[in-house]
């Protein structure tokens, strides 16, 4: 079912939703951008439609709404362990088609790879998804190649059209919300991207043998192992456990998990000084093959969703999509060995 809302109606709906939900959407944080005098578009809580940035790709993904950068697992006081209290409010996330596909990847890891994750479930089980349509492809996007440019998995869509907002309602539990504000009923088509400037083709018959190709070597010096690509990626799920205690009372502290990056030093360190993948090129290879090869081997679909955020954020202008397109060459090289 479709609706068209005025800004006033939209904000009445936001006010109504805010009583039950924490609304997460892409927002511009002034002067926090990567260049001087620019804003950073990332996820934050919103209370009105004007808070949402519709016309840009968010530099960081939605994932921190269900997978916080830092999450306390429990507090300890001497021998006692206490779990943190969870907010009673449910979560509603405004996100684009590719990111809805990313949720499936996060679910695969946290619900299915090994036992169901307790802390992920606490936040994820009550999430509603609101789709933001894409009028056109942004820079570095390659969602069409990854098959993530369209989706049906959302509760309702919310797209800005000049000075109105267009809604396509999927989940009927929200009908009353729109009826209450007397929203005009109208057929609404959600805009989806049908072509990107950037295209990738993951070669058929890709195999683990490409590990030994020399295509990875250029990244030894180009990459600086800053890990930004991992932190902006909506499908990266790794974390590290950390214990910390409060300095003014050494007997009280907490154990938490914090996002980790397979590109950054220390990721593979084992006790006694050993580590794996010392060369940055090999880390690039590990990350790339996870995204477009071995995740699929294990779970049946690719991990990468083609949002291109890794390319947007890389300070060394390394292009992930460009590297994917080198795979046929790599395959040819290792087949000749």
């Amino acid at each position, binding site marked *: 079912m479709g609706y068209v809302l005025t800004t006033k109606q939209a904000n009445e709906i936001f006010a109504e939703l805010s009583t039950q939900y924490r609304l997460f959407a892409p927002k511009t944080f002034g002067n926090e951008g990567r260049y001087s005098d620019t804003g950073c578009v990332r996820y934050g809580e919103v209370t009105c439609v004007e808070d949402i940035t519709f016309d840009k790709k968010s530099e960081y993904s939605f994932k921190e709404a269900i997978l916080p950068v830092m999450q306390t697992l429990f507090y300890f006081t001497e021998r006692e362990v206490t779990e943190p209290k969870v907010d009673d409010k449910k979560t509603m996330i405004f996100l684009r088609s590719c990111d809805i596909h990313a949720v499936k990847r996060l679910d695969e890891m946290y619900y299915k790879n090994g036992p169901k994750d307790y802390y992920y479930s606490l936040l994820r089980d009550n999430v509603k998804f609101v789709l933001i349509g894409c009028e056109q492809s942004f820079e570095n996007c390659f969602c069409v190649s990854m098959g993530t440019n369209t989706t049906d998995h959302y509760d309702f869509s919310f797209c800005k059209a000049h000075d109105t907002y267009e809604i396509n309602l999927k989940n009927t539990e929200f009908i009353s919300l729109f009826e209450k504000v007397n929203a005009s009923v109208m057929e609404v088509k959600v805009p989806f991207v049908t072509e990107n400037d950037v295209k990738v083709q993951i070669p058929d018959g890709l195999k683990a043998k490409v590990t030994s190709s020399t295509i990875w070597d250029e990244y030894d010096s180009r990459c600086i192992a800053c890990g930004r690509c991992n932190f902006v990626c909506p499908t990266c799920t*790794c*974390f590290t456990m950390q214990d910390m205690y409060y300095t003014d009372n050494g007997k009280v502290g907490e154990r938490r998990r914090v996002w980790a990056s397979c590109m950054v030093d220390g990721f593979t360190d*084992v006790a006694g000084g050993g580590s794996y993948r010392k060369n940055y090129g090999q880390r690039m290879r590990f990350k790339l093959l996870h995204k477009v090869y071995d995740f699929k*081997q294990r779970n049946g679909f690719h991990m990468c969703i083609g949002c291109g955020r890794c390319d947007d954020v890389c300070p060394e202008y390394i292009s992930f999509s460009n590297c994917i397109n080198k795979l046929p060459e790599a395959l040819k090289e290792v087949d000749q060995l």
Partner: protein
Amino acid sequence: MIKNDYIPFSSKILEVIKHTEIEFTFRMEYTADAKPGQFFEVSMPKYGEAPISISGIGENFVDLTIRKVGKVTDEVFEHYTGESLFLRGPYGNGFDVLDYESKEVIVVAGGTGLSPVRGVVEYFYNNPDKCESMTLISGFKSPDDILFSADLEKWKENMEVILTVDSAEEGSRYKTGLVTTYIPKLQIKDKNNVAVVVVGPPAMMRFSVKAFLDLGIAEENIWISQERKMCCGLGKCGHCKIGDVYVCLDGPVFNYVKGKELID
């Protein structure tokens, strides 16, 4: 409600066995199931968790042999009070001794690699009729680094034990040389009825496996155990991922047919 797998339980330290200055076995109270080669996440609040493999299993205990080489283990040595440690687990697949039964079993362990396989050796020591023969090659850096010396002495009763150190002072009573020196000299009756288990540092495993392949032992008759930094043990944190495998879920024990494909 889903179980919270991250909350550790407190386990009483029953005994501390000191092997060397930096390697102690903590005998921990534990009564549920566990297999050799599996591991626990051992922690002391404030200092963090470390994955430690099971080095012995008894009716009411598991042995965890801890080496003082990392952030957490340093603190365990420094601060354990003799009362308890926190544990989560056991995690991982562990060794399946049934795979090795009625075969010529050869276990090669490098340094602390002896801890995870100790349960396998112990099984065939206690059940000598369940294997064709049992050989253990156990290598350490120097005589001061030898672990489980009482066991090594005891096991000699009904199996061949080759204890070697990388180097020792002249006149030492120990054999010297890397474990790989002794592999080609093994007396193997039937190449097709052998089960080889190799555990140790990466280079030691690589060269040991190669030595067995050179002897004509098939890949499917070789097992290895991988050491990685497992933060969660639950297939989530990603630190132990190699290719399409999570060492904490699918390993740490791998048959070499799969193990050879694991490129870090």
